[in-house]
């Protein structure tokens, strides 16, 4: 069910320059054999991903596996050194910043505090891509940013200072900032960081609702595999800069995924009422070398785990 680098892209025999004949609209996002690295360190290698308009995708993997880098590349904030990334048919790394920001909105994991800035002022900054430097001098309360604030439920605190808000409130304000860009593709880098359980669920439900209401495509990095399995329609796992699994959570979230992508022995069950996959992680194990998506060789020292941890996985 999970093969490495399985994608929905066209067969490699077709001309790579065209977005695919006869398919109607180009995919909302097409990542085509993208590579990226810093000197001495390869971050992404041959990553391919095709995303239909309206999909809600969670990107999971260990720290440093390239998830955030993939988001930055997709937003056009970094330039890939191999392959190409097209958003609705346009190569984002070739677009000017403003044009890229009209197509893709990216919510970063963290943002520095801005002393004295109100919610309204911060959310309005999302209009820059549409309005330009001089347009930003005009009226400060436009319909798009007002709607963005209303959509995430922060309209009532429009005149409060952002640094006075709680973590959960601030996250909603930052989501409103990304929505104010009015871009069809929304990228979220760990939108639930620093939030408690209740606010994690609130933010993700908000994302699911807005995706439907605004007909956006959403690609989000999530650290919590349980939340990813519950909220996403499709789950993409990265391991050492490569796509290790790609598919619906019910198919992809397995003990194999836990072991191969996260290096954790554990079990996977189902929520008794809702049926979504639930993980029961047990013990960290040695990660198999990258090009070994199959179960590791018996040399993976089973003797270290005297209890039945590995039982279900095998």
């Amino acid at each position: 069910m999970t093969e490495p680098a399985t994608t929905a892209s066209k067969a490699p025999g077709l001309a790579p320059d065209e977005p695919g004949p006869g398919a109607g609209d180009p995919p909302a996002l097409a990542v085509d054999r993208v590579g990226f690295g810093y000197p001495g360190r390869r971050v992404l290698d041959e990553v391919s991903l095709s995303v239909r308009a309206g999909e809600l995708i969670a990107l999971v993997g260990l720290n440093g596996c390239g998830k955030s880098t993939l988001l930055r590349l997709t937003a056009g904030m970094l330039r890939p050194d191999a392959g190409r990334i097209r958003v609705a048919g346009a190569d984002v790394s070739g677009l000017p910043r403003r044009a890229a920001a009209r197509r893709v909105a990216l919510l970063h994991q963290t943002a520095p505090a801005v002393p004295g800035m109100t919610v309204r002022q911060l959310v309005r900054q999302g209009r820059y891509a549409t309005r330009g430097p001089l347009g930003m001098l005009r009226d400060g309360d436009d319909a798009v940013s007002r709607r963005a604030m209303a959509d995430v439920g922060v309209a009532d605190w429009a005149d409060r200072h952002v640094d006075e808000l709680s973590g959960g409130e601030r996250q909603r304000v930052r989501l409103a900032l990304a929505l104010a860009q009015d871009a069809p593709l929304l990228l979220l880098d760990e939108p639930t960081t620093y939030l408690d359980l209740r606010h994690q669920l609130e933010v993700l439900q908000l994302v699911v609702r807005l995706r439907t209401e605004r007909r956006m495509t959403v690609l989000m990095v999530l650290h919590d595999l349980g939340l990813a399995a519950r909220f996403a329609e499709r789950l993409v796992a990265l391991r050492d800069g490569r796509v290790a699994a790609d598919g619906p959570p019910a198919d992809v979230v397995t003990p194999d995924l836990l072991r191969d992508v996260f290096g954790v022995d554990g079990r996977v069950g189902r929520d008794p009422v809702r049926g979504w996959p639930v993980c029961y992680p047990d013990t960290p194990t040695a990660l198999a070398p990258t090009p070994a998506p199959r179960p590791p060789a018996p040399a993976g020292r089973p003797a270290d785990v005297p209890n039945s941890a590995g039982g279900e996985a095998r």
Partner: protein
Amino acid sequence: MLGCLTAAVLLAAVTGLLAGGAVAPGEVWPALTGGAVDPTTRHIVWQLRVPRVLVALVAGACLGLAGLVLQAALRNPLAGPEVTGVTPGAVLGAVAATAAGLAGWASPTAVVVAAVAGGCAGAGLLWLLAGRDRSDPAAVAVHGVLVSAVLGGLTAMVLLVAPGELGSVVQWLVGTTEARTWEHWALLWPWALVWGAAACLTAGPLMLLRCGEDVARAAGLASSRARGFALACAVGLTAGAVAAVGALGFVGLLVPHVALALLGADLRLALPGAALAGAVAVCGADAVAQLSSRAAVSWGAGHLSIPVGAVTTAVGAVVLLAVARRHTTEL
């Protein structure tokens, strides 16, 4: 609030016109409106006081604006024109030109040209030294301190080698509005107008830069270019102000805090506000300097003229302490 600041500017200007010693306050208005006063009074008011007040207002506006632009672009509330190499560069330019005999108080144009050139050279030096770290505000600030220290040392060396002009130059190192003429005004205002207008038009990008590199770029700002343009505006404004009145301490550092506190984080308002507040600060400080000089003289201090820079530095040090304390408690 901008209206209040404008009123404060007018008040400071009037006080500045009335504050001097040689003409009684009652004679200033008739002298301005062409009433019956003797020619010496008219000359003092028209040729000395009015240009002095005007230069102080515009130089203050430049410094306030430059400070806010710098603090927003570098995301550093304790950045000021002093740490971008511009002020020390301009001082060095003016001092070197004076020492080399190319310029002097008799030829303000030469001083202004030398100071602007020096200011731009100082900023250019920072630009070169910062190298790859140009997009890192903290690294730029550190290099700025370094450049400022080196340029300050060079200025001291020039002063030691050519001590002849020391008296007039030292006043200028502190910052003074004494003996500013219409020639200064004619050189200053077009320069200030161009760079000031450019700075105010960058309010949108500057607000995004204040939000941080990642947020700014995600929202569609080509941040390096925007920051470069904003810094160029700040350099132009600072160089103009320093060329006109010398290295006034603390104005560019503290006025932005006043503007942000009064007008909020919306830079469309805060930038003009910083210009007005800077004008009030320098013109008001000049009036205070003149009044305290008169008071000192009446107490028997002989001839004394306190430069405006001494007032801004004294007041500024206290305010800076307060600002720094507030920031450290926030951290």
